[in-house]
């Protein structure tokens, strides 16, 4: 089949990764999509996606690569939980991104032009909107704003869009311990208040923090939509900027697990160069840094034994930041009464899209039941917080936000 050969070629090295899958189904055991009601069907599971690709790539059946197949591939939302259990070390989500990328090269674009343009430029739009936060917030909260988001981007109108709270910060670099902040969209444009609270705390402890200009979004949604060339360009730009800081002795600071994941894991793979690896080695997340400071006795926090439930987001799991977060919460005097590794279903932008909204709710339903009675819920991922906030109607806090809000420092 012509399209099978073409797919094989476009997948490059990922084609042989597909073939290496031993079809053990271990990935299904952690894949959040195993929770959807149709998951009794093999084709709706993680292993199924690999097997279907194997059947095409090995020429075991004659089929044309189609939109229908792409819909199945689309069920993988890139949470990366499977990477921890796959005995063969198959880069499952990366394979799905490249299938999407191949599809669009074969004339089968996976997302609408409008959505692709939006994802490519979201940071620029957010930066613009943040200059007029009053106006932007009125629009996004209005019915018109939601209708536009749905019509133009396919974002379900039940989704509560995030408010614009830009990060305003004066650099303070007259210090030995220098940090350059890599914020991604939420840190820079939606949760600027939390980030600047963190900076003040760090500055009191003698750190100098700078926000490098010209940095772009981390770009994980680009990967997920299969916009690999754009993701690579974004990564290159960010690495160029950040590696300059690393050269000058800065550590790169993140607050978003997506930003951390991009710098630590995705950029080195996408770019395969020394600068990307250098940036990766010198990146630290705020939760790790604070936990270190608390452990070393340089920062004292008292959460007064407040009970919190920690939701370990997919990316906090994939980056192993969850360990540091639970450690930090405990060391900061909170009482972590539960941790829930279950997926909330949103997976970045995936669950916000109209076509996935209901599926995403099904994926998250077990988690929502667990969290219904919890008083203080903490999660590091911005989209998980946005999503759970809108479904549970409760405040969900970033770990740093919980510390700023409840701890006596």
């Amino acid at each position, binding site marked *: 089949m012509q399209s099978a050969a073409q797919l094989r070629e476009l997948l490059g090295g990922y084609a*042989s990764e597909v*073939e*290496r899958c*031993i*079809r*053990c*189904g*271990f990935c*299904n*055991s952690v894949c959040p999509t195993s929770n959807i009601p149709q998951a*009794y*069907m*093999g*084709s709706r*599971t993680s*292993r*199924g996606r690999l*097997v*279907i690709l*194997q*059947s095409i790539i*090995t020429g*075991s*059946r004659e*089929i044309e690569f189609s939109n*229908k*197949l792409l819909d*199945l591939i689309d069920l993988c939302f890139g949470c990366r939980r499977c990477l921890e*259990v796959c*005995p*063969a*070390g198959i880069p499952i989500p990366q394979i799905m991104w490249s299938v999407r990328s191949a599809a669009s090269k074969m004339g089968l674009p996976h997302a609408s032009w409008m959505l692709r343009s939006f994802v490519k430029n979201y940071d620029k739009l957010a930066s613009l909107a943040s200059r007029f936060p009053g106006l932007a917030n009125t629009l996004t909260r209005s019915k018109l704003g939601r209708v536009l988001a749905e019509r133009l981007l396919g974002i379900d109108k039940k989704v509560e869009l995030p408010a614009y709270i830009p990060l305003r910060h004066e650099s303070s670099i007259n210090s030995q311990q220098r940090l350059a902040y890599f914020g991604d969209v939420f840190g820079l444009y939606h949760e600027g208040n939390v980030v600047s609270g963190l900076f003040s705390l760090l500055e009191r402890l003698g750190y100098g923090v700078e926000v490098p200009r010209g940095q772009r979004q981390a770009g994980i949604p680009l990967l997920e939509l299969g916009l690999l060339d754009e993701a690579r360009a974004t990564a290159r730009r960010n690495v160029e900027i950040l590696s300059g800081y690393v050269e000058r002795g800065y550590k790169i600071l993140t607050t978003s697990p997506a930003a951390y994941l991009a710098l630590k894991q995705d950029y080195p793979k996408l770019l395969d160069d020394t600068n990307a690896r250098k940036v990766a080695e010198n990146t630290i997340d705020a939760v790790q840094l604070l936990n270190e400071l608390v452990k070393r006795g340089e920062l004292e926090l008292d959460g007064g034994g407040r009970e919190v439930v920690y939701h370990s987001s997919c990316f906090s799991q994939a980056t192993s930041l969850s360990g540091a977060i639970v450690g930090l919460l405990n060391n900061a005097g909170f009482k972590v009464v539960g941790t829930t590794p279950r997926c909330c279903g949103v997976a970045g932008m995936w669950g916000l899209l109209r076509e996935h909204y209901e599926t995403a709710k099904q994926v998250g339903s077990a988690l929502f039941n667990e969290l219904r009675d919890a008083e203080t819920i903490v999660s590091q991922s911005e989209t998980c917080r946005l999503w759970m906030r809108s479904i549970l109607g409760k405040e969900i806090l970033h770990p740093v936000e919980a510390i700023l809000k409840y701890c006596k420092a």
Partner: protein
Amino acid sequence: MRYKKVSGEDLENLRRIVGEDYVSTDEDELAANAIDAFPGEFHMPEAVVWPGNAHEVARVLAYANENRIPVTIRAAGTSLSGCVPLYGGIVLNITRMNRVKEIAERDMLAVVEPGVIYERLNEQLSRYGLFFPPDPGSAVACTVGGMVANNASGMRAVKYGVTRDYVLALEMALPSGKLVKLGARVFKTSIGPDLTRLMVGSEGALGVFTEITLRLRPLPRKMVTALALFDKVTDATDAVYEIVRTGLDPAAIEFLSRKTIQAVTQFRDLNIPDADALLIIELHGRDEHVLEHMRDVERILERHGAFHIKSAEEEGERKRIWEARKGAYPSLLRISPSPLTGDIIVPISKITDMVAKSYEIAERYGVDMGMVGHIGDGNVHHTWFADRREPGSWERASKANEEIVRYAIELGGAASAEHGIGIEKKKFMRLQHGEAYELMLQLKRLFDPNNILNPGIMFDLEDVMAVELP
């Protein structure tokens, strides 16, 4: 044998039995059910059917039997010996039947539907301080029904036994459409031939399990684990024999050969010195006595020349020891893209001979090979390195494996200890069973006169067709 193709009318009728949503002819779905964890070819079914309960299973079987449509039973599809629809027809996928129906704490038993995943069941049982011990390496994925069909087992078999030792009763759907109940809710019976035990390991050739009653065990309270390294593999295998023989009742004795140790060291970030053999020994008990027993184990290991011994009681440390074993197969997979996994077992007194023979065969065929195994009961998995894309590579690995299987049978052992026969090991059935093979074929004819169940799996279809009922 001529089977009927699945027609539009058949699909209609099947939908009437199981419901509209639970019959599929979608080609991607067919592909997902056309292969399992055995590295074989894709064999597309014509339809996939997901029954929701025992009666639906029975009705689907009766329909297929009447219409001569082959039925391939599929659970989690983790079989390493291959169970795919060789003759097309329908795949009867039992994954929807995954309820734990009852946990009878006082009777120490559980009643489950066949599609429940092993680890999910044990998660529920742990709340009662109970467990179902066999613990296959595929615990997170495989189903209890698949385990019963293959008589699966795992790391703890040397103390706790295998799946067969835990199946008290079964409900089964037969090709005739009958539902039968075998066994009873008690640990022992003396009530005639034991059909329940006969069914364990029948690989779906005789009927479909629709309900399984399992005996349970209390979770051990105290566990201690040791790792030992040897310069000579034969010293390790001799030590195994002595540990088993001394009545120390090990809960696990696992073995890694040199190649496997190297692979694990390379891919699992484990700092293991170069060695010819690695053993992991675990003891389970109620109290501190196990620690004393572990000292005895250590003395045996020392006496047999172990140059490094480390034991651990604390959970994290024990886990780190087990990492060497749990990472073994994954690490071998990194080296060999489509490995052929063997599953032979020999009497424990013959382990040393078998290991020596394995190296000799590997060298003769020029095939790399890593061994890893439940050596406490004589079961070793050879991982013969192969790459299907390289001409001749798979065939060489198969030949090497075939030779060690023949040797194992010669020593009084068996072609498969836990993975089952499937497609892959059919060729050894006659050698393994001799005259008794005919009896098995007759049994197959008796239960499944039209050969609709799992055709070509475990028994060659021609062999079944050729046999005469007495």
